[in-house]
């Protein structure tokens, strides 16, 4: 839910999770692979606490800024993430998309004034995002167990590896930007993302029977959709099975 960057420490965290995985009990036949559920739930609770105390209120204040200013912030952040998308487009063999991303980066960084204005979208170069987690998926690597990361929110082993590679190797801004700039970007990314997700989060807290299970399911579905480049799940085997199984188990049984 909340995205924040802590590149060096992430590696340590990642090692910790790998160790924890060794000791994990196998999943109990659920649809999702979540062997670390008890630990994940604890971390989810801490993230929620942190959100209620700090991130949520900050995001609310941010929401009171004028819309054009917030749009400019979003545009700058998106432009900063373009190089990672570009490299991953290339790694996935999506050369048309890579060309599109390169055009966006070039247009918005120059006449868009350091990305303040998203002129590329208006010129017919729509935005999209790729990351190394998606690249790994395209390369055929499974998502692995679900993980709830401290501060960073829902993830999987594959997506956590992806995040570490994106931040640690593929992202020029993580590599070369001054500490203060990197921190400002991380904070901006966190607050802006939290602000945009606010209706969803409010809805979740109000109407979900089990918010942790909802977040986990929604995250895994959303990632699958991003990896498919956003086509609906129709035709996916697991999804279709849900709608076939009630054959011969008619509605009348419930009446």
């Amino acid at each position, binding site marked *: 839910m909340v995205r924040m960057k802590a590149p060096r420490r992430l590696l340590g965290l990642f090692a910790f999770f790998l160790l924890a995985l060794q000791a994990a009990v196998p999943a109990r036949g*659920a649809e999702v692979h979540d062997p670390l559920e008890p630990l994940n739930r604890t971390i989810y609770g801490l993230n929620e606490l942190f959100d209620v105390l700090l991130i949520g209120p900050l995001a609310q204040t941010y929401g009171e800024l004028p*819309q054009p200013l917030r749009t400019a912030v979003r545009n700058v952040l998106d432009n900063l993430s373009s190089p990672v998308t570009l490299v991953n487009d290339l790694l996935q063999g999506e050369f048309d998309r890579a060309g599109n991303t390169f055009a966006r980066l070039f247009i918005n960084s120059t006449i868009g004034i350091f990305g303040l204005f998203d002129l590329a979208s208006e010129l017919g170069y729509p935005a999209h995002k790729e990351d190394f987690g998606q690249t790994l998926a395209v390369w055929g690597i499974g998502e692995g167990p679900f993980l709830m990361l401290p501060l960073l929110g829902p993830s999987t082993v594959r997506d956590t590896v992806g995040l570490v590679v994106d931040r640690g190797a593929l992202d020029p801004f993580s590599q070369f930007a001054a500490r203060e700039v990197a921190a400002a970007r991380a904070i901006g990314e966190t607050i802006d993302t939290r602000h945009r997700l606010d209706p969803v989060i409010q809805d979740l807290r109000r109407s979900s029977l*089990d918010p942790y299970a909802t977040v986990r*399911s929604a995250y895994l579905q*959303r990632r699958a959709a991003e990896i498919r480049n*956003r086509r609906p*799940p*129709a035709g996916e085997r697991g999804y279709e099975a849900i709608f076939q199984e009630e054959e011969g188990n008619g509605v009348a*049984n419930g009446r």
Partner: protein
Amino acid sequence: MAWQTGVDRRSGWQRRKLILAAGGLFLLPRPLWSAQAAAGFVDELGRRVLAVLNDRSSDRATRLARLSAILDEATDLELVARLVLGRYWREASEAQRREFVNLYRRLVLKTMSERLDSYGGETYEVLGSVAVDERDSMVSTRIIRPAGEPIAVDWRVRNLGGRFVVIDIVAEGVSMVVTQRSEAAEIVGRSGLEGLLAEMRRRLA
């Protein structure tokens, strides 16, 4: 689709010409035809819902009552509830099934009531539809918001012998049925079906 089976070529061709003259629509394989009708159904549904939401002359209770009438007509909540409960439906007793459908329906209405006031002038656009199988189609729409990026919403529509019902809503790749199934399975796995029913009652209290 008799022309696909063993009828002889000539009569098949003549029949096709006849059908074409009668209004080419029937030449399309049935699921595709159904998918187009499903898109029309979603479009009409959207128009009716927007008409209620934009009706500022009626009070809140009236608008809510009209929305819930549309809901009953345009969905089959019993079917959706059964999909949400998944394999636990089979294990449930008659009374538990009835109770679950009843609670599920009341939770949907409660959520609808809570969301009624957050309507902020959104509109929609039907982008197209595909047939998934003989019964189901996915209708793709885009919800256009006054502020913020549009949201991609896909509607799974089932043809129940000529009557269309929405059986799933997929927002930006996240399916309502899949998500609620995951919640239900989680709670039943932890505290049994009675635990799930108790949690639903608690939410309604």
